[in-house]
């Protein structure tokens, strides 16, 4: 613990790097995964294929995924971000699709009866109702990415994983803990924060039953 308190500024710098990598990667992952999730609800024929491919990326150990990327992209932030984005797709796509598909059929009928177009039904009914489920997917993806980003440190992108790896190599346990403890705290705090956001989202909906039925994904990096 002494190492942690004596080197707070170093730890802080690495923590900021960690937040940056995770934020960029999760942002990109959401920009790809949520539209893909909506897409597979429009073209259900493709859903098993898209989920199957995303599932394979999810199964591959993250360290191995990075290792396969290195010969293609070289070291650095590129393989780190690509790896995290690929890894997070399954949860994002699946939760988005489940959230949208679970909208109460009666509501959709009512929408049609009111003369809403398909697009209006998607954006004004299904998407808002799916938001809590999508948010749950984003939460799992973010927590996972914080973990995977610490592994990405061995690609030379910085982050709290640097302290963990360096400590492990030199058998400097205190240095390992100085990286491991903050990153664990970060994961736990971020998880709680997004849970609060989810609750707020749910409370804002007057009709939340359909959305609440979406399953949550318990998982880890």
């Amino acid at each position: 613990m002494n190492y942690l308190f004596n080197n707070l500024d170093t730890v802080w710098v690495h923590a900021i790097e960690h937040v940056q990598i995770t934020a960029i990667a999760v942002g990109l992952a959401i920009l790809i995964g949520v539209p893909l999730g909506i897409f597979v609800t429009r073209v259900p024929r493709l859903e098993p294929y898209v989920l199957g491919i995303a599932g394979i990326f999810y199964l591959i150990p993250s360290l191995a995924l990075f290792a396969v990327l290195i010969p293609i992209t070289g070291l650095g932030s590129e393989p780190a971000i690509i790896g995290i984005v690929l890894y997070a797709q399954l949860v994002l796509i699946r939760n988005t699709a489940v959230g949208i598909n679970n909208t109460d059929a009666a509501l959709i009928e009512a929408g049609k009866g009111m003369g809403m177009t398909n697009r209006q039904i998607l954006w004004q009914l299904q998407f808002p109702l799916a938001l809590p489920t999508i948010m749950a997917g984003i939460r799992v993806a973010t927590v996972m990415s914080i973990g995977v980003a610490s592994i990405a440190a061995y690609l030379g992108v910085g982050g709290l994983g640097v302290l963990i790896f360096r400590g492990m190599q030199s058998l400097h346990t205190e240095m390992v803990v100085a990286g491991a403890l903050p990153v664990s705290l970060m994961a736990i705090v971020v998880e709680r924060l997004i849970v609060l956001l989810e609750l707020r989202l749910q409370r804002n909906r007057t009709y939340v039953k359909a959305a609440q039925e979406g399953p949550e994904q318990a998982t880890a990096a």
Partner: protein
Amino acid sequence: MIQYMVENSDLMIMLIKDHMYMTGVAIALAILISVPAGIVATRWQRSAFWVISLGSLGQTIPSLALLGLLMPFFGIGLPVAVAALTIRAILPILINTCTGIAGVDRSIIEAAQGMGMSKGQILTQIQLPLSFPLIIAGIRTATVHCVSIATMAAFVGAGGLGELIFQGVWSGRAVYLLAGAVPAGVLAIGLDWLLGRVEGRLTARTT
């Protein structure tokens, strides 16, 4: 890469063995811990909350950090790797055990009580067998996670396929990277598929 793997087949077999040994021991330990814990948690509702909270806390902590946080207690080598893997494997099995036991149809249990079965008999002859498919599903998730974390075990000197990835990063040679990463990926996908088959067969039998 394939050439390298054939030429060094002894090394490859050893690393894959290491990898599977770690995963196997951790899964076995996790089953021994979480199935009884799951049974206890379904018996005393109040304990369920604590058991699950503790389990999910272990799940939120990043795997690499978990490995690091256990180093002060377990040192380096196989013990710390197995400890981290076991902790990671507990939650999926625990939750599925609880869900499985709690989800057994009330009417079946009442029928068993009517037939004069004791609580212990109901548990071992009805609730547990009916929960098997779900427990296996939990073991499946846990196994995939373990294979993944076991690749990181090389960083704490516990061997496994991560060793080659480690060397590959150091030497900058793609052959090492791929010879470590591809078998690890295949192992994860293969075990997932295999346990999926077992799960499917058990589900077919119990329904």
